[in-house]
């Protein structure tokens, strides 16, 4: 099984100013800027990586953090394969906000989405306000994995993206297997590695033609 290619969507969620954009820029461009610009609505970057012999294309969606933008969340996280729920380890409020996102993602995406809870700004360890144990236990209780990162010092960022990619591949493969089992028992059509494109616009156009004549 070599040389597969995957496409995944990851969404970054979390309170304002916890470092969502910084994490993304550190990973994609290996840059860190103390005074970056605040994200309005959302931003989007693609990155291709190789894991073993497989190539993975990540579509990373960065969102605005202010509570008001919470309402737009569903537009951005629909169809996500993975989500980073980012909090600032010095700000307990930002951790509380994570809980809201977790509940919401669980309800709308079910277990299809890999959840990662990310404690960013680990360079400010001396000002830590969120006990690491509590965060880890919480992550475990909701079936997510906990990570500590510092976008500023470039700690744990690559590992974070690599790990989620591996987990998304696993998830994808296991759901494929499930489908092929279904297939063997005759439940599903013969789609496995190919996606069938059903072009119903052609049908529509034909309808139109017959309609106007």
């Amino acid at each position: 099984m070599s040389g597969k290619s995957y496409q995944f969507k990851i969404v970054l969620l979390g309170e304002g100013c916890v470092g969502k954009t910084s994490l993304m820029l550190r990973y994609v461009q290996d840059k860190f800027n103390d005074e970056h610009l605040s994200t309005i609505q959302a931003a989007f970057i693609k990155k291709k990586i190789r894991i073993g012999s497989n190539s993975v294309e990540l579509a990373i969606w960065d969102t605005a953090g202010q509570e008001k933008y919470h309402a737009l969340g569903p537009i951005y996280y629909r169809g996500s394969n993975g989500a980073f729920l980012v909090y600032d380890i010095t700000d307990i409020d930002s951790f509380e906000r994570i809980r809201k996102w977790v509940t919401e993602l669980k309800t709308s995406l079910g277990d299809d989405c890999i959840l990662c809870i990310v404690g960013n700004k680990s360079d400010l360890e001396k000002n830590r306000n969120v006990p690491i144990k509590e965060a880890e236990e919480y992550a475990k209780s909701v079936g997510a994995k906990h990570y500590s990162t510092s976008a500023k010092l470039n700690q744990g960022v690559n590992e974070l993206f690599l790990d989620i990619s591996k987990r998304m591949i696993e998830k994808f493969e296991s759901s494929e297997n499930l489908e092929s089992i279904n297939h063997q028992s005759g439940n599903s059509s013969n789609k496995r590695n190919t996606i069938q494109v059903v072009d119903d616009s052609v049908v529509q156009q034909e309808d139109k033609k017959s309609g106007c004549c």
Partner: protein
Amino acid sequence: MAKRLVNGTDEDFRRIEKDRQEINAAYDNGYSTDTVDSELNTPDLLDRVDKYGFIHNLKLPPQLSDVEQKRNNIEKLREIKWRSMIKDWSKHCVLSKQRYSDKLISRVFKGIPNSMRNVAWYKILDIESQIKAQPGIYEKMKDFARKYSLELRQIDLDINRTFRNNYAYKKRYCQRQRQLYHVLAAYSVYNTEIGYCQGMSTLTALLLMYLSDEEQTFWALSQLMSNIKYSMHGLFKSGFPKLIRYSDKHEMIIKTLLPKIHKKF
């Protein structure tokens, strides 16, 4: 922050109060020369600033390219036309009837010359009559915000991240940042349905760059939000009704005109 107020304990209230005092004091004190900012001390900084005030990574070429030179010449010609148009403003624009001359419209679409933007915006947004109709309101709101606004922390966080690559907003707590703080805070208590919403800082910062005056910027922002012609209120108000409507429309257009692309989403 609003959430904290609803279920707030005494400690939360004390925290908000402390935030408020700290943030107000920081802007009152202004830019401190003690601030360590290695970029500000680089000797070639001014050679990297373009005509709009944006700081580039590389030194700008000492001479303009032919294309830029040509563009500048066109802009100079347009400037003359705009000057005479501003003099005869009532001929070109009757705001009470929302009527604009064809010349004005076509010139706006060609691009308002940079040097004329402040006057043009001032005229088109009808700032003068706004100030006249509501004298003293801005100062009152500014004062009120200082004491009671719940959005100061978010505003401060965002000013720290607004156009920091522009020379005017580069220095923390500098004059421009302070003006921006005042305007956003005042608006957050003036239009309580919006308060402050991320995205407004960039919009207001740009208005302020050209208009320079706090009160004018405040009313320009107010016009963009609530004047029927611009109605940006619905883009920032909670739930973003207008934004969602636009995005639905956009989706419909893609679906109808570019069905193959639409399938990819």
